[in-house]
């Protein structure tokens, strides 16, 4: 049984992709049925896995590739955190995407690569060593590219080129770092508190260089400044892709990579001993502020959300880099919290564009009256991002701030306060326009959006509320992250 679950979870998305790719576009029903069935099965399997892992069960599958190189899928507590996020949000995004792309072109290609993209994410979540992580990380780059350029316009292709240049460049850095670490230390399994033993004492400079390469490699996907240039451009992708990219797949894979490298390859104590934790905090701080500043100036709704992602994902980096268990809880919980909040915002933004043709902040006047449901979900997401209690974002920020004090870096509290002010400055005007202004004269007529578009943001908004209100429940994201952190900080 220990091999079945990880493989089954991978195959529910990897296995159906070829079939979907080969289907004629007009087989809408079959395709939708296969997609939804696979996504539902995956959620069930991940739930089963989570329960077993919580009870101490271990799962591993290994395939030897070459001497000293093995592909290994393993499910530990940190994997489960990311798996749960991707499984639940994949189901919701699939429903949304089916509705969103109704009548569009190339849907088989879209859903095929959509499945491959989730398969790569799942592989990243369950990677048991650095090599496996690298394999799925590069796979993710290739699987998302066709989704970014899905619209096929010149603009989409330009964005696709930039995306590919950034991510393949990052992939090269990550590959080089991984090979170098292999040459130095042999196989690199993921183990809490790190696997490097005495090497940091004997090779401090080499290991620091490798750390920079690895973090730069995953930092491209995590959109750390100055490696974030691809993210706002890739907003040309269809709304469900943006939602998936920002909440689950690409950006989160990068953030998850930072966690794995800091916690399970080097160990957070070693990172601090090598003097690398403070620079990482600095990178995170700059990214948080820079992303928020750029978000202020964007009129395009999705681009504003994209810069907000740049900023918010760095909370995770911040929580990891601050050497404090309290901050770690905040950072890890934010992996989930940012995911559900950001997907709510993107799905709602997609609905504004579909239902009323509104794509800009300046066009949001009166949206609360025009599309109350979507706007309510958007509001919950935005308030959560700002950190209004009792929503999910507040919980993350609370722990991050407390962690900053715990780590002896009170400046972090100021950073968080400043960031929250900026969050408020770029989100509240939208909410104000939507709820307190009148719809413009001669607004575009309403196009009906079906339940497939309306339901997912409502569900994720409810999750945002629940993750905040029920933060102390045993299976809340927060509860689970406390469990993970207890393994790293023994």
């Amino acid at each position, binding site marked *: 049984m220990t091999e079945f679950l990880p493989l089954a979870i991978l195959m529910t998305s990897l296995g159906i992709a070829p079939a979907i790719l080969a289907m004629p576009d007009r087989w809408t029903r079959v395709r939708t049925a296969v997609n939804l069935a696979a996504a539902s099965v995956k959620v069930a399997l991940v739930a089963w896995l989570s329960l077993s892992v919580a009870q101490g069960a271990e799962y591993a599958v290994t395939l030897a*590739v070459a001497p000293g190189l093995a592909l290994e899928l393993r499910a530990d507590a940190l994997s489960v955190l990311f798996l749960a996020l991707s499984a639940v949000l994949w189901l919701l995004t699939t429903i949304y995407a089916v509705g969103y792309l109704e009548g569009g072109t190339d849907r088989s290609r879209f859903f095929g690569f959509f499945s491959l993209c989730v398969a790569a994410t799942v592989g990243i979540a369950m990677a048991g060593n650095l090599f496996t992580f690298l394999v799925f990380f590069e796979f993710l780059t*290739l699987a998302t590219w066709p989704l970014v350029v899905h619209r096929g316009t010149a603009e989409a292709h330009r964005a696709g080129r930039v995306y590919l240049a950034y991510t393949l460049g990052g992939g090269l850095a990550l590959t*080089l770092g991984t090979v170098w670490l292999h040459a130095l230390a042999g196989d690199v399994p993921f183990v809490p508190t790190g696997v490097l033993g005495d090497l940091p004492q004997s090779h401090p400079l080499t290991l620091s260089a490798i750390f920079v390469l690895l973090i730069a490699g995953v930092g491209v996907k995590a959109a750390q400044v100055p490696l974030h240039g691809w993210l706002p451009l890739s907003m040309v992708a269809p709304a469900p892709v943006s939602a998936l990219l920002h909440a689950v797949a690409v950006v989160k894979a990068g953030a998850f990579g930072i966690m794995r490298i800091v916690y399970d390859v080097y160990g957070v104590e070693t990172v601090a001993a090598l003097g690398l934790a403070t620079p990482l905090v600095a990178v995170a701080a700059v990214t948080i502020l820079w992303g928020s500043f750029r978000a202020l100036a964007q009129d395009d709704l999705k681009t504003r959300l994209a810069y907000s992602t740049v900023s918010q994902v760095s909370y995770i980096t911040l929580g990891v880099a601050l050497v404090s268990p309290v901050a770690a809880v905040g950072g890890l919980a934010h992996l989930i919290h940012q995911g559900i909040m950001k997907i709510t915002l993107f799905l709602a933004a997609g609905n504004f564009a579909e239902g009323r043709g509104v794509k800009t902040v300046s066009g949001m006047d009166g949206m609360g009256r025009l599309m109350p449901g979507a706007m309510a979900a958007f509001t919950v997401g935005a308030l959560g991002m700002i950190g209004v209690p009792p929503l999910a974002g507040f919980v993350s920020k609370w722990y991050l701030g407390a962690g900053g004090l715990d780590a002896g870096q009170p400046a972090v509290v100021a950073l968080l306060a400043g960031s929250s002010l900026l969050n408020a400055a770029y989100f509240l005007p939208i909410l104000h326009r939507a709820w307190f202004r009148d719809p413009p004269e001669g607004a575009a007529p309403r196009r009906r959006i079906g339940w497939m578009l309306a339901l997912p943001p409502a569900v994720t908004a409810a999750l945002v509320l629940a993750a905040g209100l029920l933060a102390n429940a045993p299976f809340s994201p927060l509860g689970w992250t406390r469990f993970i952190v207890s393994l790293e900080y023994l």
Partner: protein
Amino acid sequence: MTEATLLVTLPFLAALAAAAHPRAAARWGGAATLANAVLAALLVQDVLADGAGATGIGGWTAPLGIALAADGLAALMVAMTALVGAGVALHAADWSLRAAADARRTRLRTGFWPLWLTTMGAMNALFLSGDLFNLYVAFEILGLTAVGLTALSGGRTALRAAFDYLGAGLAGSLLLLLGVALAYAAAGRVDLAVAGTLAGTVEGRIALALVLAGLAVKAALFPLHFWMPAAHASATPAASALLSALVVKAALYVALRLSLEAGAGAGTLRAALAAAGAAAMFWGAWHALRAERLKMLVAHSTVAQVGLMALALGLSEDGVPWQAAALLMLSHALAKAAMFLAVGRIAEELGHDRISGLNREDLRPGAAEFAFAIAAISLIGLPPSAGFVGKWLMMEGLIDGGAWPWVAVVLAGTALSAAYLARVVSRCLRGGPHVAPGARRPPWRTGDVAALGLAAAALALGLGSALPLALLERTLT
């Protein structure tokens, strides 16, 4: 080791039969290719189980007979030929069937099979041969059939390219023959192990240099690649696939053999090989980036990839394990054959192979495009392909040896190959306004299965690298 003897003799007999009985050429060809694949599988199994072995054809051994030696490397190369050959033969059989009605294509249809079977026999003989003279003979046969394959499409450019190919091939053979003769004069024997003693004397080193120069012409290694892009780009898809995937590997294989035997000697030659390889990577990539035609792009990518393999050979004293070169050869063979077959299908459907025109058609040969994209993953060396494992071994060795400039060269080559292949794949990902509502998807063909299968094999081989690497452990010593 009866397989070894059969592997060398059977294809030639089948080629004779196919030439004598042209109406059934495709059937002869298909049956012989299938038999060859079975024999290759048996050989691999034998070598894995019992280790390497040597035999003489008909029981005759040296100095009179033709000695055959099958170690892990030879078995791997024979298997590579069989696998690529099976894929290409599937494509060619499908194509033969559809061309049957077309009288003008008869020559093409019947001419292909004897040429392919002779190529296969010559490749097998070359891989299994134990001495330099046999190698030379196998090379001669191979050179002639390769010219035939190039000229097969019969167009003006193809004939011109074939003629250039013939000239280059003869020049290469001349160098090779001169080298072999000089080696015989210097050492008094011509078995492959002679390379070790040759590296010790001045005459011997000159002989090695001549042999290497001859091989460089035949492998189209920069700056001796001038004949190759035109030849590979103007042939029919099946011929291009064979020429690019297999025929250039023959020369690289011999270079690998010699470098294994020559050991630490011949440092200058190694350096020259590495320098030429690095230059080839950039030269080929530059031309592939600027290519206007799809076939030209793929042919120039072969120039770059041959450079990468030469680099791996040249750097064997800097820590690159020789297995890396063998794995890169295998991966390139599968991926490049898939790519040429895919390009052939795309060009046939669209009626042209201009890269700029790829995304303005309302015709979408999706299966071929997908095969191209998967093959591209292997050629770039992205995981989980065999090309990736090859590059990984190469980089790990270089880092271990502290050869950082070469690491940078490998990384730069990888980035460049991603850039030129992305030119094509991005145009395959068209959509939106470019696509007419009535865009039609051509039906599946057996040939698509061949391209997809070869590309998928190259990709999956990375995960299964343990098998070829275990095979390579079986050496004759």
